[in-house]
C-alpha cells in the first residue's frame, strides 16, 4: 500500500507558487497579445482586400491546424536556425502562445461580427451612420455578446495550454512540478498537487463563464 506523504512536497510550496505565477503571467500575457493579434487578423479578414485576407488566412490556418507543442518546438529549435539568431525560450514561448490563441480569437471575433444580420448594417447606414459609427454603435455591441462565451472558453483552454511551455524549459507550474519531483522522487504527490492547482484556478473560472453565458442567454 502506497503511503501518501504530502509534507515532503509542501516543503516546496514556494516552487509551486512560483510556477503558478509564471503560468498566470503567460496566460494573461498571451491573452492580451492574442486579442491584439486576433483583432488585426479579423480586421484583415473582413477588410475586403484580397491579398490582406489571404495573408491572414494563411496565418490562421497554419496555427489552427498544427499542434501547439509542434509550434513551440519549431519556434524554439527550428526558427532560430532559419533566421540565424538565437531566441530566448521565454520570448519563443510567449510569441507562440500569443500567435496560437490569436488565430482562434480571430475566428471568434470574425464569426461574431458576420453573424449580425445584414439588415442591422443597412439600418445604421440608412440613418446616415458611417461604417465606423455603425460598427461601434450597432454591430459590435451585439457581436460582443455572441463572442463572449467562445472567447472565455478559448481563454480557459489557453490557461491549460501554457503547461506545454515546460518542454522548452520555461519554469511554469508543470515545469516546477517536475523540479519538485526531481528533488523528492515523489511523482504521485508532486503531480497531484500540480493537477489540483490547475483545477483550483480553472474550476471557479468555468463557473463564472457558465454564469455569464446563462445571463447572456436570458437577456436575449
Amino acid at each position, binding site marked *: 500500500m502506497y503511503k501518501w506523504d504530502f509534507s515532503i512536497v509542501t516543503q516546496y510550496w514556494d516552487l509551486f507558487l512560483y510556477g503558478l505565477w509564471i503560468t498566470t503571467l503567460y496566460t494573461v500575457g498571451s491573452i492580451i497579445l492574442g486579442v491584439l493579434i486576433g483583432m488585426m487578423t479579423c480586421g484583415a479578414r473582413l477588410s475586403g482586400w484580397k491579398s490582406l485576407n489571404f495573408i491572414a488566412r494563411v496565418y490562421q490556418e497554419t496555427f489552427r491546424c498544427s499542434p501547439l507543442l509542434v509550434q513551440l518546438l519549431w519556434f524554439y529549435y527550428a526558427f532560430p536556425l532559419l533566421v540565424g539568431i538565437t531566441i530566448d525560450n521565454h520570448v519563443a514561448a510567449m510569441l507562440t502562445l500569443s500567435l496560437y490563441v490569436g488565430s482562434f480569437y480571430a475566428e471568434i471575433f470574425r464569426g461574431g461580427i458576420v453573424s449580425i*444580420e445584414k*439588415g*442591422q448594417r*443597412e*439600418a*445604421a*447606414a*440608412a*440613418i*446616415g*451612420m*458611417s*461604417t465606423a*459609427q455603425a460598427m461601434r*454603435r*450597432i454591430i459590435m*455591441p*451585439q457581436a460582443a*455578446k455572441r463572442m463572449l462565451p467562445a472567447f472565455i472558453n478559448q481563454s480557459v483552454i489557453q490557461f491549460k495550454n501554457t503547461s506545454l511551455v515546460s518542454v522548452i524549459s520555461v519554469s511554469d507550474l508543470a515545469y516546477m512540478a517536475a523540479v519538485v519531483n526531481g528533488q523528492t522522487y515523489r511523482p504521485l504527490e508532486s503531480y497531484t498537487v500540480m493537477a489540483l492547482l490547475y483545477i483550483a484556478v480553472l474550476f471557479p473560472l468555468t463557473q463564472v463563464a457558465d454564469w455569464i453565458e446563462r445571463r447572456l442567454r436570458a437577456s*436575449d
Partner: protein
Amino acid sequence: MTVQTESAHRKDQQADGPVLEAEGIRKAFGALTVLNGVSLSLARGEVVALIGPSGSGKSTFIRCLNMLETPTAGAIRFMGRPVGRRFRDEPGATGIGTLRRRVGMVFQHFNLFPHKTVLENVTEGPRIVLGLDATAADAIARDILAQVGLAEKEQAYPSHLSGGQKQRVAIARALAMRPDVLLLDEVTSALDPELVGEVLTVIRRLANGGMTMVIVTHEMAFAADIADRVLFLEHGVVCAEGSPQDVLINPQNDRVKAFVSRFNQ
C-alpha cells in the same frame, strides 16, 4: 444681408426642382441585370408607388435611391446635385452620408436595433449622426413616437413589440432625422394581416401631411388611394407610369392588366 438673400434664393430654386432624381439606373449582379435603365423624378410632396411582380427590380431600385445598392450605371441627384460614390461631400457631388441623412428608409423586416430600447432606436440617428444632445434628441423622439401611437412603449425593447409596433418604431426612427424624402420598401409585407392597417394608417397620415415618399408595395388598393403617381416595373424596366387611375384602375398595358387583375379577385 446678401448671404441671406442668396440662401433664400437657392432655397426657392430647390423648392421648384425635383427633390430626388434617378436617371437611367442600371444594376447588375454579375451576369444578372436587375435594373435596365430606370428613371424617376420626385417632386416635393409627391407620393410615388412602385409596383410590379417579385423580381421586377423595385426593391433594388428603391435601395439605389439611398445608395444602399451602388448603381452599375446611371446617376442619382439630390436637390439637383449629383450624388457621388464617397460617404463625404465632395466639391462636385453630394456625399452618400448627406443623402442618407436626408432620405430616410423603412425596411420590410424592420431592422430595429435589438440591443436598444424603442426610445434609443429613435434617438440614435439624431444623437450620433446629427450630433444633438440627449435632451433635444429625446424631445424629438417622444414627439414622433406619440405621432405613431407608441408613446407608452418608449422603454420597451424591440423583441417585446408586435410586428406592427416594430414597423411603427422603424418609421419613427426614420422620421426622427427630419428627412426630405422617405423610402418605404414593402413595409407591410412581413406583417400579419391584422397588423397591416395600423402601419398603413401612419403612412397615410404622413402622405396627407405632405411627406415626399417612394413606396414599394403589394397593397394595390392602398397604392391607388395615396399615390400621386404609380410606376409599374417588370424585368428591370418601367412598363407603365402615370396616375393611379391610368395605371391601376384602367390599365392600358396588357402585362399591367394581368398583374392588377390578380389583386382584384
